[in-house]
């Protein structure tokens, strides 16, 4: 195309000089000419007759890769079976898996090396190793959860498991007697007390760290960070030594709540601190610029913006707190009866009940222990899912109802502002009329007019 333009221009130039017309006309022709000749301008190339191949897949694996992988897997398994069954005296399931995996790696390396260089072989091998690490980890973790639920499934179908306590059920009683209602209630009471302390204190502290600041805030942050390192058993020991052995002299649900609080507080503070720090600075500045006090800024801007994040922080802290066994072990005491008074008498919770059940050698008690653990897992997973659902929607995303509410509020604000402005205007006119007799009348009138002018002019900018 560039060549075309060059030729056009040279032709035009030559033509111009041959005809002997003035230079200005030449220039004009030159400017007009390319527009009429399609070759001279930028144009989309004609796609007709061009062969466009299928889009190349950059990601994903080729047939070769898949063949290598499947082939190596099959060959590895076959080789291990041969070794274990016929050639060598090796036995054991774990050994088979290890040998099969190693021979799979070796065979895969050989297969890849047939078609590509050393770098590629290394790349493929590492990819396979990383994938195996991931699969192993997720399989192990999922297996831990499923194992618990499956072992507990003999206790779970009995409805009495959720509606009765262990008061009348001994270790030898069948599974259709007794249940863990007292532990469920105990867990709920303890976590509620812990939350009642943690939520206000934790969130206010996080607000303090972010909105007030200063040297003391840095100290608070350091101390809170340090406390996340506190081993949970030490938190339990502290409450045991400070509250139980010095003050109350008996284990109680309240002491357990205190121990859980000491564990949860740093977690909630740190998580909320991170969330509050993410609130955009221009939102804060905007609200200050509108004349809000710091308190109103926090209450009407910072906290609502960070709401979903704060809820997530609290729920994650709750999930941790519910699952803590060791602080509760030292502080709450073990009981088989329902106790709804957190201030007197032992009050058991779910993790402690699990621990207590599986200490018994009786298979029924062990089954109850697994059942209780399954209940605990379900509770924790439900809390976690709730946190995901709430935390998943960003702070700026509003549901339909919230959007309508916000629009309504804006409309009311506009109405309020306009009414107020009209009232002020009317009052001002009335005042001006009232002072009409004085010489200041005209000045006041003009100044009011200019004032309105500037204000209307000022509004759009």
């Amino acid at each position: 195309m560039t060549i075309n333009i060059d030729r056009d221009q040279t032709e035009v130039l030559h033509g111009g000089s041959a005809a002997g017309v003035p230079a200005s006309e030449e220039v004009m022709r030159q400017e007009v000419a390319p527009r009429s000749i399609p070759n001279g301008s930028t144009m989309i190339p004609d796609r007709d007759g061009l062969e466009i191949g299928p889009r190349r897949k950059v990601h994903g694996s080729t047939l070769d890769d898949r063949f290598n992988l499947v082939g190596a897997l099959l060959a590895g398994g076959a080789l291990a079976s041969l070794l274990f069954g016929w050639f060598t005296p090796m036995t054991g399931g774990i050994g088979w898996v290890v040998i099969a995996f190693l021979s799979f790696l070796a065979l895969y390396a050989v297969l890849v090396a047939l078609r590509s260089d050393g770098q590629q072989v290394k790349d493929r091998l590492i990819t396979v190793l990383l994938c195996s690490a991931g699969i192993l980890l997720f399989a192990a973790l999922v297996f831990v959860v499923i194992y618990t639920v499956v072992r507990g499934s003999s206790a779970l179908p009995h409805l009495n498991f959720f509606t009765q306590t262990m008061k009348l059920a001994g270790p030898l009683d069948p599974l259709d007697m007794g249940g863990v209602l007292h532990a469920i209630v105990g867990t709920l009471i303890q976590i509620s007390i812990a939350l009642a302390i943690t939520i206000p204190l934790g969130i206010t502290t996080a607000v303090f760290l972010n909105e007030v600041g200063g040297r003391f805030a840095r100290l608070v942050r350091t101390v809170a960070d340090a406390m996340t390192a506190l081993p949970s058993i030490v938190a339990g020991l502290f409450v045991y030594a400070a509250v139980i052995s010095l003050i109350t002299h008996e284990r109680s649900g309240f002491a357990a709540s205190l121990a859980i609080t000491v564990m949860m507080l740093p977690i909630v503070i740190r998580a909320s601190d991170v969330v509050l720090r993410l609130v955009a600075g221009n939102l804060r500045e905007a609200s200050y610029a509108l004349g809000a006090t710091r308190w109103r800024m926090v209450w009407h801007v910072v906290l609502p913006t960070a709401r979903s994040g704060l809820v997530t922080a609290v729920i994650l802290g709750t999930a941790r707190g519910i699952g803590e066994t060791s602080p509760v072990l030292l502080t709450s005491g073990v009981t088989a009866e329902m106790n709804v008074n957190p201030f007197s008498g032992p009050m058991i919770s779910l993790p402690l009940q699990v621990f207590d059940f599986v200490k018994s050698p009786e298979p029924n008690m062990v089954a109850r222990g697994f059942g209780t653990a399954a209940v605990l897992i379900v509770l924790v997973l439900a809390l976690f899912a709730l946190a995901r659902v709430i935390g998943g929607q960003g702070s700026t995303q509003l549901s339909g109802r919230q959007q309508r509410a916000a629009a309504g509020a804006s409309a009311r604000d506009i109405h309020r502002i306009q009414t107020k402005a009209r009232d002020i205007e009317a009052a001002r006119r009335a005042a001006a009329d009232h002072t009409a007799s004085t010489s200041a009348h005209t000045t006041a009138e003009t100044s009011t007019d200019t004032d309105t002018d500037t204000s209307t002019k000022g509004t759009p900018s």
Partner: protein
Amino acid sequence: MKDALDTAFGGAEPATMLDTSEHPAADGTPGSTAAGTAGSTADDSDLYTRRSFASRLSVADTVFRSVSYSAGGITVAIMLAVGLFLSLRAGDALRVAGFSFLTEPAWSPETQTFGIAAVLSGTITIALVAMCVSVPLALGTSLLISEIVPPRLKATLVTLVDLMAAVPSVVFGLWGAFFLQANVIPVASWISTYFAWIPIFQVTSASGARLTDASAFTSSAFIAGIVVGLMVVPTQTSVMREAFSQAPAGEREAALALGSTRWGMIREVVIPFGRGGIIGGTMLGLGRALGETIAVYMIISPVFVINWEVLKTGTNSVSALIALRYGESSEFGLSALMAAGLVLFVITLAINFTASSVVARSRSGAESEA
């Protein structure tokens, strides 16, 4: 002038104010200049007296400030109370035991012979085994999540990892005690048969004879370490993944454009950028592994001798010691347990602070996450 006044008075009642100041100028009388100057100097002296920029707090703000200050104060008070109380109560025992607290393996505060040599070495053994299990898994999984899997799967895996971090430790303890205990013995026995030339893999009785009986391999630091390792993998994975995902895209693309394979890119760009995350994540996991109580307590059989043979039955940990002995303790025994707890706390504190400073230094931005 007028604008200045408007602004100064917030434009609240401009008409009345302007009335007085504008009047002489608008009047047009010969004396107007003088009067105007006089007026403006009078005003100027008002205007140019230095306005104090220190804002006076409203009542609500004062209350807000004091409430938030006191919340911070209460938090610090609770935390310091824990630390001070532990140190004070631990002081009794430490004064009696002196330096032998760190070297004495036995634990009987009643006879004044007690120390944490056995429990601390057990804690460290378990934590080291846990690290051997968790670090390769966490490193592999975090690289897998951040570099290899497609985006849609990535979100799911990240959620799954976070979810696993919330599974209660008693559940892991159950799994370790009822499943792993029985199934890992052949492996332990095999290792001790073929790798006995490495001292820590030996399993010998007190007289030095080699043990091959299955009961010699139960309740060992090895089994407890595997379980604790699995428990801390999610924590480590999420810290490492966070660090890896912050490796700059430009340098990744540069490496790929120079013809490197994906592994070459990971080795030359992602891992150097994420080194702080790897170290920090490992140490955070180590801190949790040291403090883990209930899973360890359910698996091990406590002994009060220093046992470096990780496969052999019998080990101990500081937190398991506290869980085991708190109930029967006298006032002095409790103080000794507090001393043990304090030592554990100081160790985890040091590890955590090192970890968070390493992670913070490796980050470019000001953001930080747990």
